């Protein structure tokens, strides 16, 4: 059984201990607390060198030290502290780095509130358990043979066909029936090549519809999107070593994943505000009567400061933009203001929860809107933002990459 060490502060008093355990158990893992004695706590704390006032954070540091020094031998580590606690956030990140720099044990971090439920922790625990049991798969850095990656998202379904470390076909369709949409997207990808379903070595599936597709197409790999997207992004951006952040501003929800050597270690997902989503830009382009593909270049030419925008809200914000246009404002400035607004709202809602590491790899359909990419970089103080080729097909690329070496369909023939 996969043993996950809990290195945390405040979980019991926020009433979420049971939720953590429930999430771990669901993925065949058990939670353990690294056992240490009092002298060791003081010794480890001194050695680590972070002067924390809270004794529970000292205990956290000592537990991390016990893992690094091999006194406790878990397969994975879950680091969690209270949301909005500055002292704990500092310790959480330093402890995370300490374990990652000194061991090969996978780590996932989280900042919780009393409302944190097991469902939110599932994907993290699944990613942790996967990293342990499938380390060899995640270590893959090159695609081989002919593989098909299918990503069934809540709005769109993507397919990518890869051969010898190259993307040779892509497909994209809006998600209706999971299987039919996957077939449509795959057919589009195949049509760009001379291959068909019978030629592939293996199929990998990811996204919300991964189990349904996996069963239908007898996929060799069915994998949650956290590991797949992270892997796909660092592969395409050529950042497989070291740290990176993957940002996907989606049509309905957003994902931010932090990655260390190609393995995800923290993740936030938002989906409560349309003003922080691609939908805001979709509505703006309709109001401006331009195609969504033209919005980015238009925004790059404009200056967001010249368009009045008093609200991030998809209702009131869009209304402000319309008012600006009516008062004779330029379309470019309005487009820039819309991109700026989405980027700021993503920052407010999500990016603050996570430690952003450079480079930031922006993926998903909205990464093709150049004005938004520019706005994200500006919002984050001018950090390096990479938009790799095929960034809109990230999950499918990740799935095609990871499944390579796992499928032997052609051997049977």
């Amino acid at each position: 059984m996969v043993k996950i060490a809990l290195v945390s502060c405040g979980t019991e008093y926020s009433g979420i201990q049971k939720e953590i355990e429930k999430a771990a158990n669901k993925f065949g893992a058990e939670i353990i607390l690294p056992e240490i004695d009092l002298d060791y706590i003081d010794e480890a704390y001194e050695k680590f060198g972070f002067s924390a006032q809270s004794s529970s954070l000292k205990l956290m540091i000592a537990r991390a030290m016990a893992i690094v020094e091999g006194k406790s031998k878990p397969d994975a580590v879950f680091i969690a502290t209270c949301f909005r606690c500055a002292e704990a956030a500092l310790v959480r990140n330093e402890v995370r780095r300490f374990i990652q720099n000194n061991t090969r044990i996978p780590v996932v971090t989280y900042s919780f509130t009393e409302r944190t439920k097991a469902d939110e922790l599932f994907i993290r625990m699944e990613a942790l358990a996967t990293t342990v049991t499938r380390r060899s798969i995640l270590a893959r850095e090159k695609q081989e043979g002919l593989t098909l990656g299918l990503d069934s998202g809540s709005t769109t379904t993507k397919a990518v066909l890869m051969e010898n470390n190259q993307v040779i076909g892509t497909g994209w369709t809006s998600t209706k029936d999971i299987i039919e949409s996957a077939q449509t997207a795959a057919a589009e990808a195949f049509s760009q090549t001379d291959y068909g379903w019978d030629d592939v070595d293996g199929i990998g599936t990811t996204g919300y519809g991964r189990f349904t597709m996996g069963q239908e197409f007898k996929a060799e790999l069915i994998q949650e999107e956290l590991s797949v997207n992270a892997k796909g992004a660092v592969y395409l951006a050529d950042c497989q070593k070291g740290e990176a952040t993957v940002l996907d501003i989606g049509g309905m929800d957003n994902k931010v994943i932090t990655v260390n050597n190609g393995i995800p270690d923290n993740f936030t997902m938002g989906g409560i505000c349309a003003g922080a989503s691609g939908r805001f830009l979709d509505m703006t382009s309709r109001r401006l009567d331009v195609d969504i593909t033209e919005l980015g270049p238009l925004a790059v030419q404009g200056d967001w400061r010249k368009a009045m925008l008093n609200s991030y809200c998809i209702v009131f914000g869009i209304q402000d933009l319309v008012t600006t246009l009516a008062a004779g404002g330029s379309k470019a400035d309005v487009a820039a203001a819309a991109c700026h607004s989405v980027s700021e709202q993503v920052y407010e809602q999500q990016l603050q929860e996570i430690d952003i590491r450079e480079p930031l790899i922006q993926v998903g359909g909205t990464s093709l809107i150049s004005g938004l990419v520019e706005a994200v970089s500006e919002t984050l103080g001018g950090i390096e933002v990479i938009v790799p080729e095929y960034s809109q097909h990230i999950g499918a690329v990740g799935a095609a990459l990871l499944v390579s070496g796992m499928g032997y369909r052609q051997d049977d023939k």
Partner: protein
Amino acid sequence: MVKVAIYPPNSLILADLIERKGHTPLVLQKQIRQKIKDPEIDSPPMNITEEDPIKGLKYAAIEVPSGVRGRMSIIGPLIDDAEAAIIVDGAPFGFGCIGCARTNELSIFLLRNRDIPVLELNYPTNQDETYVMVNEINEFIDSLEETGEE
């Protein structure tokens, strides 16, 4: 009999010295017992649920981390009940309820603002300082009796 709040609220020495003089130390463990002996709640180990950090809003605003509010929901009622308080600075802290520095700062502040007799001491580092601590605590408790009798 005077109800004396102590800080750290789970200190063996403080609780014992107060009880020796026939007063009631307000200790954390009693609060914990109330929680864990409620068979209606199934949230081991402490039986703290999402509701407790919300109860903690009485003591700290919503922007304060859930761990602080959850702890305050346990420690807060002790502060409310206190008729006197002994606060020891620099005492060794355990790692549970009192493992959070922010909770401790808030609790001590609330005790100081209760308009009750408060004794503040430093945790001893040697024998002489221990004598001073024991003497001061005994004198403080005796003075409570005098005020009580008036």
